[in-house]
């Protein structure tokens, strides 16, 4: 079957089935199971109302359970069993095997580097852009342009930055803008930026910072606008200069938002895969956990170690998960 027809059919079946399910289950609930008339009318209405939320929730809960909750459990199970031995329980063997792999430590080190640099840099640039663009007339246009990379895929961004980092031999015209600038500023020879161990990590991080800054800017700009004007005016009347106003008056009032931005970007960083996969594929010491895991799962076909690596990512996300849930519950009350 032609995939386009199949797609159309899926939309019709999916949407139709969904509407049909909700409509019919409601009908059954109200008309057949617990009709709101007859001797038990009152009790029936109550019963129907107790069941209805679950009718509404059922498909979503099924999806969440099957596609997100079950895999967590299953991954834990896979990480402590050995597939080659028919799924026998091997305890922490996979973890031990992984910790003997220098590539794993390289990936972990790089991931920590990413975690330190990318959220900090994105938040910093986002805050800078938000504060600066709020003060000029063409601010909204500028914001749009800085926000734009958000719509570009990681793979697209990888191509964009490969061109930026491109290097040609010294006797040829440089076509990568970074090398052109580098040579114009007095560099002696063009650099292949992505193959310089350790520092190349930062050239990869730049791609994610480029994408995430717009996100940080949008959120922080809204927060900055929410600051009560009196506090700023009072500070100015007291003789504060613009830098003092910004760092002493504004930033402390948006700390909460800064933390939210920081953690959101942290989660993105932990899952970063496409950029490394497309630009270096972990060569030249740029491996990260997500790509390491993909390598183990689909190239080495080692599901045990791959799952163990996935669990490490999960472990690193957990503090944020707990913090988010804690905040959400506080808010519910």
């Amino acid at each position: 079957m032609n995939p386009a027809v199949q797609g159309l059919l899926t939309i019709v079946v999916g949407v139709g089935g969904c509407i049909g399910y909700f409509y019919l289950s409601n009908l059954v609930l109200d008309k057949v199971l617990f009709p709101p008339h007859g001797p038990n009318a009152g009790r029936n209405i109550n019963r129907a109302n107790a069941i209805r939320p679950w009718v509404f929730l059922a498909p979503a809960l099924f999806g969440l359970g099957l596609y997100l909750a079950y895999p967590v459990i299953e991954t834990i199970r896979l990480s402590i069993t050995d597939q080659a031995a028919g799924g026998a329980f091997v305890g922490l063997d996979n973890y031990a095997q992984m910790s003997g792999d220098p590539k794993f430590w390289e990936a972990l080190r790089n991931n920590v580097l990413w975690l330190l640099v990318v959220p900090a840099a994105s938040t910093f640039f986002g805050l800078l852009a938000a504060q600066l663009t709020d003060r000029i007339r063409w601010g909204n246009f500028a914001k749009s342009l800085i926000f734009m990379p958000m719509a570009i895929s990681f793979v697209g961004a990888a191509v964009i930055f490969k061109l930026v980092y491109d290097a040609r031999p010294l006797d040829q015209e440089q076509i990568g803008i970074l090398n052109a600038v580098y040579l114009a500023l007095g560099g002696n020879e063009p650099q292949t930026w992505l193959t310089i161990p350790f520092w190349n990590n930062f050239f990869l991080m730049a791609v994610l910072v480029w994408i995430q800054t717009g996100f940080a800017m949008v959120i922080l700009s809204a927060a900055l606008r929410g600051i009560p004007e009196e506090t700023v005016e009072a500070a100015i009347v007291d003789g504060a200069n613009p830098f003092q106003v910004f760092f002493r008056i504004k930033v402390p009032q948006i700390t909460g938002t800064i933390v939210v931005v920081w953690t959101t970007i942290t989660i993105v960083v932990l899952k970063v895969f496409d950029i490394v996969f497309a630009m270096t594929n972990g060569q030249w010491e740029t491996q990260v956990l997500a790509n390491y895991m993909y390598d183990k799962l689909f190239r080495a076909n080692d599901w045990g170690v791959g799952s163990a690596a996935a669990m490490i990512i999960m472990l690193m996300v957990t503090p944020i998960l707990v913090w988010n849930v804690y905040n959400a519950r506080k808010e519910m009350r």
Partner: protein
Amino acid sequence: MDNIAGTKSRLTWAVNISVVFLVLLWVLPTVGLLVSSFRTTEQIRSSGWWAALFPAEINQTLRAADPDDNRTADGAGRYTVEGNLFVAGGHVPDAEQVSATIRSWGTSSRAIDAYRPGETADLGDGETMTVRSNGDYSWSGNGDQISGRGQRVFVTAETPPDLTFDNYRKVLFEPGNREGMTKAFFNTLTVTIPATIIPILFAAFAAYALAWMDFPGRAILVAGVVALLVVPLQLALIPLLKLHNEIGIGKGYLGVWLAHTGFGLPLAIYLLRNYMVGLPREIIENARVDGASDFQIFVRIVLPLSFPALASFAIFQFLWTWNDLLVAMVFLIDSSGQTTVMTRQIVELLGTRGGDWEILATSAFVSIAVPLMLFFTMQRYLVRGLLAGSVK
């Protein structure tokens, strides 16, 4: 508001310049790729993309047409060859299409800018050469001089920015091009549309239940959704691939649609619930008092009022599924390569065509163009969704 104390304009310039700098820093990488996608292989190899924005001055060595075939005699022993240097050099099919303008020229490699266009060079013993700015030349002399090989001419010509759609024609409309993007484009579209529409309905009903229906366990479910929001989808790859293989879906569109639906649900439920909670209580309670059932309230009141949140989520999900590489690689793309999506195709090209920037840039731009269009037309909803999704 920072300027009430009259400190205006001292900083304004500094701010404006900083913003210009920041914007350039953020936009130039993309512009570079866009410009490159309109240049020929030759141009990309010989100069940086920024050179394409200005007229380029290049030195060329051209040659007059073969005199033995083209010369005309005036009957008095003088022969003349006339024509166009660029045509003779095979650069353009005819003189009408010459876009370069010759600034100076010469007939010796030691003095390549000896003459201006329109001047006549004396090559000795009565042999002369005239070259006009568009490359038209007239070369005359006696029978011995006007024979053998055509006269060499060194020209310094200025060519206007020259952009071409050829790359796009090649990447999109060349039938049978295995590296083309047409198939991948439609595959991506096939993945994206159902994967965007289906989770919305699932999530909308669930969000309504979590926002406006009272039942035991509601708070725990909301907390659960918040928790699942950050679960890395890397964890889901192996277990679900196994599951899909066991129940017979295998790798294919159905699998990738289901996966995207599952992965998109937490954000959808979270966004929609946050929005629905904020709807005015009176409307919903009045409807209840008037005897509307929950189903009616949802379909007739809550769903239409939630349009902005639905739009926000739809944009997020569209961007995410369109730009996705990992989920497609794991759940969709099999060894036949028939179902490859654009992101995958680009990664493939990065491997096999690493240096061919005209192909890479064009392919990447084909894939980027749709999200960018969506971004610029629907930015309002995107911003609103971001604000609802992360500020607590």
